[in-house]
């Protein structure tokens, strides 16, 4: 009996001693409490790097790239014959420019906005956290993050115009809405203030990062669109910004167009700013094979997963390519061959992608040309093996064409038309070089379309050239207010300072 009492007493005493009686602090095992981080330089890079990681969702099915592309004339997602890809009409709203204050709950619209503003807030938060810490190359890292934030704001003002604006993470109130003029000035100033701190030469160490080339390309694009965005003619400034990139001497036009989009395109001397992807390591995925290919293409590319068959080339757009244009091969059309080059026949029918589509509300299985601009590696399977190609945001051809367009608008085309690199863009496509007389608004818009198809260019170009409201294929004419997307309903609901863009 004494033994029992002893046991009990020991039990009780031990348990009283071994626990801290009123301690309610949480013990964390599988995450890192914020106080235990920042022990090394590497930690700061890992932390600041989140600003770049937030770019990775960009080319996914339901994010910013998809929103802009599907609203433009180079892409469409019709409903399939079996009802797939109708998705409660969300793609149709985008293609037909019927997004407005009542359809602002559109999922793609919301996820695009979230992606951009999570990027902006991540930059604000990173700057807030790392500014008080001393570390090597601090000024450069801060400058990079600031220019990257300016880049996110560039997206935000391009798509939505009037946006909530904040640069201070410690400010806890919902931000005020700022117009394009304000944001434009901020972006330009932010680039100019920080461009001298960032890396000049695009060394392998700085691959995928903000460099001078990236900063000036962004600046050039700001100035090129200034007329549309803030009503000011800044084409001369655009030319100067392009010249800054050219003067770096670091970039050249690749002899082979497709070199920029290969699985291992990190060797391209033309690409200025990319989002690097890894087949397994990146959490966000690059999976255009799934978006665009029909399952019958599996044997062409030796895919491991079944593709989803949704994103196709808008039929009218196909017509702007001449048959000689090598860039037409960015798309799959006609008889498809298997990996060893033999024509594919399925249940007795030759597997042919037709660039035409009979019925917007009932697309046939193999209707619509498909995109193969980025090379598809073998054994692709969503979330298992994803595309390893690095996604190109800015490339040198873009800089040269920006300069050409700005000069054209200034009436000074002839100053640049003979530039060897500029001519190389045409010759590598198998086409004759331009003469001054060739350059008209219509030709320039078509050429930008052919060169940068599906690269996330088209919406901006169509707006700048004033054809955004025109009808094409199944899309009816749309009003000038459609140049801005509505602010998603979730953002309107949560920030009382926001006024919806006019329908």
């Amino acid at each position, binding site marked *: *009996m004494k033994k*029992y*009492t002893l046991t*009990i007493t020991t*039990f*009780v005493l031990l*348990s*009283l001693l071994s*626990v801290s*009686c*009123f*301690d*309610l*602090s*949480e013990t*964390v095992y*599988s*995450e*890192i*409490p*914020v106080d235990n*981080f920042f022990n090394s330089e*590497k*930690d700061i890079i*890992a932390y600041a*790097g*989140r600003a*770049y*990681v937030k770019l990775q969702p960009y080319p996914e099915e339901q994010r910013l790239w998809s929103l802009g592309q599907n609203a433009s004339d180079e892409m469409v997602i019709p409903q399939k014959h079996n009802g*797939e890809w109708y998705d*409660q009409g969300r793609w149709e709203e985008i293609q037909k420019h019927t997004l407005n204050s009542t359809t602002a709950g559109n999922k793609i619209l919301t996820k695009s906005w979230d992606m951009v*503003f*999570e990027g*902006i*807030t991540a930059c*604000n*938060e*990173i700057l807030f956290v790392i500014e008080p810490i001393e570390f090597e190359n601090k000024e450069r890292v801060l400058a990079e993050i600031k220019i990257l934030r300016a880049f996110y704001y560039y997206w935000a003002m391009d798509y939505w115009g009037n946006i*909530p604006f*904040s640069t201070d*993470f410690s*400010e806890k*109130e*919902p*931000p005020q809405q700022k117009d394009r003029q304000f944001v434009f000035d901020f972006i330009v100033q932010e680039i100019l203030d920080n461009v001298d701190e960032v890396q000049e030469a695009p060394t392998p*160490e700085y*691959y*995928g990062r903000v460099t001078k080339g990236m900063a000036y390309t962004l600046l050039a694009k700001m100035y090129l669109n200034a007329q549309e965005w803030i009503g000011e003619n800044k084409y001369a400034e655009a030319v100067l910004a392009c010249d800054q990139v050219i003067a770096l001497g670091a970039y050249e036009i690749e002899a082979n167009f497709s070199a920029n989009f290969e699985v291992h395109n990190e060797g391209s001397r033309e690409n200025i700013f990319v989002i*690097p992807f*890894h087949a*397994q*390591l*990146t*959490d966000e995925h690059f999976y255009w094979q799934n978006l665009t290919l029909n399952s019958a293409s599996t044997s062409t590319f030796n895919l*491991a997963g079944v593709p989803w068959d949704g994103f196709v080339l808008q039929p009218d757009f196909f017509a702007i390519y001449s048959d000689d244009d090598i860039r037409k091969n960015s798309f799959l059309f006609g008889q498809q061959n298997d990996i060893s080059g033999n024509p594919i026949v399925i249940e007795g029918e030759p597997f042919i992608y037709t660039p035409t589509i009979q019925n917007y509300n009932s697309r046939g299985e193999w209707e619509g040309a498909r995109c193969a601009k980025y090379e598809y590696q073998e054994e692709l399977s969503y979330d*298992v*093996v994803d595309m390893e190609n690095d996604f190109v945001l800015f490339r040198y051809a873009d800089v040269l064409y920006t300069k050409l367009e700005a000069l054209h608008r200034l009436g000074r085309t002839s100053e640049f038309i003979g530039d060897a690199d500029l001519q190389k863009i045409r010759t590598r496509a198998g086409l004759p070089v331009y003469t001054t007389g060739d350059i008209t608004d219509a030709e320039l818009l078509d050429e930008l379309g052919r060169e940068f198809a599906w690269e996330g260019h088209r919406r901006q170009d169509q707006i700048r050239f004033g054809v955004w409201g025109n009808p094409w294929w199944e899309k009816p004419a749309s009003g000038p207010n459609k140049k801005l997307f509505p602010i998603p309903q979730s953002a309107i*609901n*949560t920030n*009382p300072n926001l006024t919806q863009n006019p329908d």
Partner: protein
Amino acid sequence: MKSYSRQHSILFLYLFLAVVLIFSNTESEAQLLDDVTVSGKVTDDANNSIPGVSVYVKDTQIGTITGVDGRYSLNVPSEAVLVFSSIGFETVEVSANNRSVIDIQLRVSTQALDEIVVIGYGTTTKKEITGAVTTVKSENFNRGGFNDPMGLIQGKVAGLTITKPNGADPLSGYQILLRGVSTLTSGQGPLIIIDGVIGADLKNINFQDVESFDVLKDGSAAAIYGTRGTNGVIIITTKSAKKGQQVLEYSGQVSTQVAPRGVRNLSASEFKHAIETYQPSKTGSLFGSETDWFDEITNDLPISYQHNISLSGGSDSFSHRTSLTHSTDQGLLRDNLSERILLKTNIKQRVFDDRLMLDFNFTNNLRKYSPANYDLFSQAFIQNPTQPVYDDSDPATGGYSFQQGLGYYNPVAMLNERTREGQTNDIVLNLRATLDITDNLSWSNFISTQKSEWEENSYKTKYYPTILGINGEAEISNGRNSNMLYESMFNYQKAVNDHDFQVVAGYTFQEFEMNSSYVGNYNFDTDVFRHNNISAGSFFREGKSEMGSYKESSRLIALFGRVMYNYDEKYLASISLRREGSSKFGDNNKWGMFPAVSLGWRLSEESLFKDISWINDLKLRVGYGVTGNQDFSPYRSLILLERVGSLFYNQEWINSYGPGQNPNPDLKWEKKQELNLGIDFSVLDRRLSGSLEYYLRKTSDLLWEFQVPVPPYLYPYLFTNVGTISNRGVELTLNALLMKSENFSWSSTFTASHNKNFLDKISNDEFTQSTYETAFLGGTIGVWSQRIKEGEELGTFYGPVWLGVDEHGNDIFKNQNPVGDVDKSNWEKIGSANPIAVLGWSNVLTYKNWNLNFAFRGGIGGKVMNSNRLYYESWTAIGLRNIVHTQLENPEFIRNVTYSSKYIEDASFLKLDNVTLQYNFDLNAKYVSKLSLVGSAQNVFWISGYKGIDPEVNLGGLEPGIDRLSYYPRTTSITLGVNATF
């Protein structure tokens, strides 16, 4: 599985025998004194014999039980004091005095009112209770076999809804909901306390081991459990060691199930007829076979059995009870089974002149199982009935017929080409030491640990239809949960003249820990390894496999106290307070106060009522209490850095870290305030008794993921406290002895409850949105079917109002636009999932040795979304896939399905839950004192206008009232059992 069970059964039998041997020697001293045989008959005041009365020698384990004729016979020491006790009667002690015949008349216990009611941290009596507490003791339990003990009180407690949303799945328990939904995202289940272990797991007790349930319904009763009291508290007391009687009991059941198919699809011939008649363009989908897919994946008559053996006995100072259960449940789905071995021991010992009482419990629950994939039933439903099961033509599919279709897979292949096995091992240990410091003051310390280990493995062969082209997929996941509880409390009781006090004060500390890990791999050269050689798959080497692990812990600490007072058992009062903190709360809100007060007035003790002879007891109660809900995952308040992706930095891929959520340092518990008014009564010589409750409960600071602006927030959602929900309702409980004669009696319990739910507020200055859409119906439907809206009930369906079908076979809707749709702005309220009233009626009839129990349950007024009709009731859905039979009955509808009130059906129902017939044998055998045979049927039939699977669907959560496509069928089970006492 079989060899495992045999080995373990044998092992446990040995263990059990060892325990029996150890404890049985304690009785030997007493037996030396035997020298007289006493026999006699025990009767009640109407001279009816009373079976089942315990007759034992005081302070020994010598004892027996009266037979059906009320007779007993016992060898006793000549000077022994005999004790006669039986539930419902007053206990009598008689000296043997060398008599050989002792007949005893027992008086009906004045009161069922002296019945003990277990409340938090103590007990009281039925007459003194001031909170809304319902007690159900074993004699009032539902009869039959249950794999979850909650089945024992289904329909017995007004306001407590116990349903089985997952039908006959042997691994799935009941869903329990008390007084409506009072939370948005936190846990909805009541707090379960088993033998003092707070937050215990119901699967760790066998239904035969339960002695009583005490359900603390209102806030004043539950407030003593602070942050966990909001959804009510169910206190389960298991059968424990009893002195005086040595009883060996055996109970065995065997049961089988027959499956009523709630919803019919088309048979092969109907399908062929339908395609040829109505959809001739789809004759390509006729494959020429006749397959009953449901039949292919189910067992015809699944057999389950259960054995339970228990031994108890002991002396005043040392007693024990040990119970061993072995059960095997075979599911309706092939290869779905569960096998369980449960060992439970309770030991009580008194030392230091009974000053110190030790109460020790040990439970080990070992379960092996093979879980069910509910998707198989929906696959079987939509599978083309003219498609054969097997097709040898394509070697890649392993001999199964395969048709390409999105989300369309051969369920037989899914069943045969995947092995799943799981096991759990739960060990619960606890010890309570109670020291009587003085006669009035005791100090009790309780320590308990509950450890649960689980593992689940799966292997899909290369022929598993969703992974064709990959050579097999193996998965292993496992984990461990633990729960450590320490409590220390003082209990003081004092009576001064007519003033009675009972005071409790204590401290409690509880810590929870959970960890888990997962590994998956693909592409094996052979199916031989299954999951047992997981690195053999090639995905590891190619860097494509997945693995993960996680660990979390949380703490609860509280101080609590309560004073109960009564004056002359007439005026009653109770005041309690708990101050509790949870580690999960934000730094600014770690601790909360949970007060309660309740008062009672026993009118029947007033002279005015004492003269009214037909009123035996009448009590008014009022109570108010504050409780909390902290049932959400830990760390929600903190800034935590986690891996947020990979970054290409300086030519290598490095991990990037950042905050993974919006921190919320203000995060706190949901707070519920509840006012309860109650009347308890007992009339007509106590033949009719019952209670009536009215409650008003208001939950504020509702926890939800609210949308927030980015910036300033990092992410678009913040887990925070906004808004209020209220529930108000009435509950009626009636217990009646309808008939009573010498050979026949009929007693009945009737319960009825009504609850009305309102979402008062879901917005404030910061979060201004007042309506949210919920209950998304995916796939081809693609709409939100319910709205969470201020001023409305949770579970309110919104949609187009359906008026009928026009002559062209199109739906006609109210306010339809030119295209034939209804704009969302014209959607109306088209039903609420919440029933207006929930009813229960259970009966016990005895005639001589026969005993018949039956129980009905019903619900009035709830609406259910019939998903099977919504998705499959159209000609456009037929083709590769089968459709629901009702389409063939109304073939004129030819359009695509559009979500509307057409598919919202009235789910009022009446269900015969349970019928049990028991026969008790008259035995005068030496070794067997009691023997009874039981036949029972459960879920016998239901009557309802509802055309879906079962009118009783999940009513919890934010999306109640939706009959899901993935389901496990409900069955009628038939059980035969034997109970014997030795």
